[in-house]
């Protein structure tokens, strides 16, 4: 893993067309500005992890449970 030190308003490049700017650094949080082509997906890793864990939960779903809940509702 590459570790860089940057000051506020400095930036770094990932490849030729992705630029990350350090906008603000305060109270243990870093605000980043990201300039990237439209086709590059940028999202918080938590979303990714959340979907992963929801997929695992979804694996436990089965039709019997489902019908039981639906029947109870009626």
């Amino acid at each position, binding site marked *: 893993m590459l570790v860089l030190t940057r000051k506020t308003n400095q930036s770094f490049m990932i490849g030729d067309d992705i630029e990350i700017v350090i906008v603000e650094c305060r109270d243990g949080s870093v605000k980043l500005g990201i300039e990237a082509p*439209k*086709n590059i*997906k*940028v*999202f*918080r890793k938590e*979303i*990714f992890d*959340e*979907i*992963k*864990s*929801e*997929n*695992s*939960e*979804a*694996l*436990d*779903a*089965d*039709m019997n*449970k*489902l*019908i039981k*809940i*639906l029947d*109870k*509702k*009626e």
Partner: protein
Amino acid sequence: MIIDTKFSGQIEINDEDIIYFEEGLLGFEDAKKYVVINLDEATPFRSLQSVEKSEVAFIVINPWDIFTDYEIDIDDNELLSLGDIDIKNFMLYTLVTITENRITTNLIGPVIINVNSRKGKQTVLYKSSYTTRHDIISLIKKV
């Protein structure tokens, strides 16, 4: 060929029923081949069943059956990775989770399938305000 399924016992499928997920589903990267199986006809639920691993099967719905105003914005490049973009070739499903007495669906991580190229992937709607758990129990009607 005959495969073992999680919800429907053994069923016969044709090669052309198989949808190839190059990247698998998030957390299930090893299962690449799936079929969509109709379950109880009285409900909107189907199953996304792995051809290779019988225990890997998800209950899915077409979200527009329930959330008529569901909106998505998927990048063209992402759609192109599944073949030609022709809207009528695409199917979209969301995974269903059951926890205690709740039935929810994950509207932020839908599965898109190009039925023409028979390729699919799970996408992340990273700009949307949807969540992984939208209640659907009150919206489902048995027909």
